[in-house]
């Protein structure tokens, strides 16, 4: 799952949007989106991604959709959010770090704390 660690919650949420935009244009994610409780205009999103217009594409991904499908926030918030994903039955959560390089490093630091 995509993960963005930041003390600025809004920044963390925004950092996850490009990846979600890239994959949620695929119709096979429709049921996943529905079960997450959100709505995404997948047709409009597909047009934006096809143009590689990422700013337009990210507008199709609401903050609520990010929070339903990603972890985003401070390390403590991310750890709490991660638990909900693991409870679904994952043997190994795999984190996809987003945001700036420094923010990505914070995801790895969080992983170290989870493993210790």
């Amino acid at each position, binding site marked *: 799952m995509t993960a963005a660690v930041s003390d600025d919650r809004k920044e963390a949420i925004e950092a996850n949007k490009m990846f979600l935009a890239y994959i949620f244009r695929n119709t096979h994610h429709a049921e996943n989106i529905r079960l997450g409780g959100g709505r995404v205009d997948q047709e409009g999103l597909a047009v934006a991604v096809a143009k590689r217009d990422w700013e337009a594409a990210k507008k199709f991904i609401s903050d609520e959709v990010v929070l339903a499908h990603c972890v985003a926030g401070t390390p403590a918030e991310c750890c709490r959010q991660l638990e909900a*994903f693991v409870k679904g039955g994952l043997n190994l959560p795999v*984190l996809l770090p987003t945001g700036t390089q420094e923010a990505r490093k914070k995801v790895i630091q969080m992983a170290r704390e989870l493993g210790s």
Partner: protein
Amino acid sequence: MRVGLCFDGFYSIQEMIELARLADEVGMESLWMSDHLCFRDSLTTSMALLAATKTIKVAPAPMSPYSRHPIIYAMSIATMEEFAPGRVIASPGTGNAAALKEAGMESPRPLKTMREYVEILRRFLRGETVNFEGEIFKINGAKMGFTPSTTIKMYLTAVRPRMLQLGGEIGDGVLLSGGCSPGYIARCVSDIKTGTERSGRLPSVS
């Protein structure tokens, strides 16, 4: 809790290598290098990640049967395993249908294609002379000139129910798509378990 790290290929290889070294140092379990068409290449990046790290496992994922013939995939993954024995995971999967279509590659009959793909890959990696007359692939006596020293585990990448079931049936594990909600993950795990009941094995879910 052990955790893996995934790269989407959206940022530079230098940045990924820096993060991979850090992940290796802190003891993360594995690196999963996405094969997103039009972004950084999964196989060449995975080799660079292996070269830059010491113990962490590396998985190029997913390798699509529509873009990489099984012999090409077997050659690549076996070369990686020869370079870093015991540190390579294979993750075949059909891939991003929209991206394949953009590149002019159709993705018909995904279940049959994946079932044949995995069988052929395993036979190549075991060093067999492969004669295969499938509905999708035909192999006419090809045999790898070298074989891996360890058994490479296969984690099928899957999103939809029947592919998840197939992953449970024939995979050593199943890699879910990024962006799955907790509710969808639970449903995926249920589908995978349905598949395992056919095989009697217990795959891992990542």
